[in-house]
């Protein structure tokens, strides 16, 4: 398992955790825009998803084509146990580092 997670990777993994079995390009993009207020290009999102898949943190499968997609299939993503563990480890590290710092940080 290579290294720690980048910020974008964390966000995407969190989006997948939220979306469950409905995670695909458009829904991940919307989730990131709505909650993290990050407008990301689909190219960036797919790059991140591809990298996570290469790290064997997530897996993908192709769904059915729909008319409003011009007859193209969706590529669904889901968290793998390894992805789950990596996400938890990453979040715990941030929580431990941030513990008690909120008042201080918000003041300055």
């Amino acid at each position, binding site marked *: 398992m290579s290294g720690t997670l980048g910020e974008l990777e964390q966000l995407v993994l969190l989006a997948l955790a939220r979306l469950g079995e409905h995670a695909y*390009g*458009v829904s991940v993009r919307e989730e990131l825009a709505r909650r993290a207020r990050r407008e990301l290009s689909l190219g960036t999102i797919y*790059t991140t998803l591809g*990298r996570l*898949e290469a790290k064997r943190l997530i897996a993908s499968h192709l769904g059915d084509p729909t008319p409003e997609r011009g007859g*193209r299939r969706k*590529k669904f993503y889901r968290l793998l146990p390894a992805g789950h563990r990596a996400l938890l480890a990453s979040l715990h590290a941030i929580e431990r580092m941030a513990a008690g710092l909120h008042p201080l940080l918000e003041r300055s």
Partner: protein
Amino acid sequence: MSRPEGLRDWLTTRLLARLPLEDREALHGDLTELHHQRTAAGSSAWTSRIEYWGGVVGAAMRYRRPPPIPALSQPARRPRLMERLWTDLRVALRGFRRAPLFTALAACTLALGIGSTTAMFSVLNPVLLTPLPYPGADRVVGVWEREEDGSRSTIGYATYRDLRSDSRSLAAAAALGLGEVVLLGDGEPERLTSLRVTAEYFQVLGVGPAIGRDFTPEEDIPGSARVAILSHGLWQRRFGGDPAILGRTVVLSAIPFTIIGVMPASFRDYLEPNAQLWTTLRYADQGWACRTCRHLRFVARLAPDVAPLAAQRELDLRFEQLQASYPDDYASAGTIVVPLQSQLTGDIRAALLAITVGVGFVLLIAVANVMNLQLGRALRRRRDFAIRGALGASRGQVMRQLLTESLLLALTGGALGVLVAWGGIRLLTRLDRLSLPRLEAVHLDGSVLLFAVLVTLVTGVAFGMAPAWLAGRKDLHQLLKQDGRGGTADRHRLRAGLVVAEVGLALVLLVGAGLMFRSLTRLLSVEVGFQTDHLLTMEVRAIGEQYDSLAAVSLLADRVITAVEALPGVEGTAWTSMLPLGGDFNRYGVQIASRPVENRSDAPSADRYLVSPGYFSVMGIAVRQGRAFTPQDRAGGDRVAIVNHAFASSHWAGREAIGDRVQLGGADDPWWTIVGVVDDVKHIGLDAPPVPQVYLPQSQWMYNEGLGGLVVRLTGDPAGMMAPLRQAIRALEPNTPITRVATMEQLLAGSTAERRYTLWLFGVFAGIALLLAAAGIYGVLANSVQERTREIGIRSALGAARGAILGQVLGQGLRLAGLGVVLGGVVALVLGRLVDGLLYEVEPGDPLTLVGVAMVLMATAAGACWAPARRAASVPPSEVLREE
């Protein structure tokens, strides 16, 4: 509506071309979905469009290909390996589809190589390798007397009896003699081959009768009841598989025998494959049972854990004792004990081994050729590999791909090769003239297929290695930069080496075939000593009590001649006790009156013929001195003899043979006065050296030998003559079996069948080798010319003559061929002794053959060079310069 959408999709696909297929489709779908959402939410067409294209361009710019999937953890390995293999296979198949000519050529070449090797193995396997189908077959041996020169000799009964008694090495032993009997009864009288054996014969072989019982020792003494054991085939054919066969009486050559057993259907007597029944020998210490009457074969089953050589040592000791006790009776040096298997294959082994080596060469040439094709193809795909390398394929991956291709090619070739082998085996077994032992066991079975698979895999790896190694070794980026010019010396040297090897191997095969061809032509031009055309031969026997007397047989013999000569189309006819080239021989020790020898075993031996007066004129045997027999040489008159030229010149050198007297057989036998000398007749075969021959008048011989061979000189074609002949003889005596009918030309062809067969096989393989070698030269030159098109074009633009370019390319090819011829010539000289035994009056290093074959090969090579050379000479300079 559809047109702008089609254009949009097309452009999107172009812009996203860099993405892997799955991601491209999903992303394209996502963009379309977002576009729909915006339109549905009321955005204006233009806004939607701008946002859509913004998304496409953004995605295209932002997208980064994910890193390659890292090394796999253990449990996931297996499916990934299969997947990789599958990919390799798909790529290989696609490659083959794109190069159909290469694929067909390579697969056919391999099919020829693998097919001929497999076919040959299917012959070798049962004939030389698989044990005989007897229990403990490795312990069944033949025992022979060993002559001073190391050759084998059959054995006398007394010697057999003394050698086997109390022997510790032999668990069982038997003597056997060939018998020929005429079976009378329902239907045609039939001549059968039988074996006369001592009681333990079937115990030696380890197979007993399926019905009834084996012989007992009491049935193997003179005067005992006559009993017979039948083969399964004879029982079925002549007795309709009668279940009550045991105890029935069968009349063999007018003597009744009681049937006591039937052998199993699976039983084959490899000592005499034609034997259909077995009777006991019934010898004891008298008559034919002497020590010098060496007419029996001796087989034995060794005791457990006794090696043939150990048995031979024991028997040699006993033999020395016998020599000491009976010094007059033995001229042999000792004994020979050989496993039955090698005894049976002895004669044919040399031919089979030579052919096998030849086939091995064909396979090697085929592999070299395919390797060459692969190298040429690898060259054309250099850029392809380089690009793959640039895209991240490792050297291992490229090598694996090449190996997969090679194996796939080998498997295709192997599958076709099995077809070739199947046809080859059918062809090989049809030519049963070769008198191969166990030919009936030759077929395409599991072990043969396994062999084919092994050969295929080994070949696949062998010719996959070189290109894969080259691809792995060369820096791929380097290759990409070179772009076909220079820097490929390694590959050139390898390909040139392969061509040299191919030519060399082909030369060795051609030399072998050439030597055999020369032997055969020498052999066919040999004087046989008589006129072979328009001569019909057959064997006729006089059967039954009425022909027990010499006079009765004599009378019948005369009447047959009169009746046959009365037929239209018959010029003349005569009797002989044995037909030249008929496969039998009858040899006697000859005592010469003017120079008698003390010890009878030192007397010269001669082929003995009993003939009727017309024999020499019917056969066309020239009388050199004296006279031929006449009807006046009758029983009761002066006993006369005629000897052949070889006998006269070797034993009466300078002196007149005519008038001298000879004695055949023992000291009590009569003397014969020589009245004539005739030409030598080839009796055993065309390659046999001339041996002494003695002719005696049939009517003056003192024992009843019951007719024999009949030769009929015809004025016209033998076809259609047999029916009237048969009718004429049967009219005189209906019970007379007429067998072995053949024209003399057929007998002659039969005596050279083995040579012609070996030559034919070798010729076929040599032809294949020549073709493959020519293809190899062509391939290398064509490639080299293609690579150097630019160079050649520039040279001709600078004024080089067409002839010079033509000559240069031709020279390049001929240099390779010449080197191959020289190296192959050396190998041919070294391997020459392999075929020495198959040659007749031709030395393995025969210069005429070597030079002739070399010229054929060089001419073929020149032919193969011609097309590429012409192409090189006709390269138009303008075209090349335009390219520059």
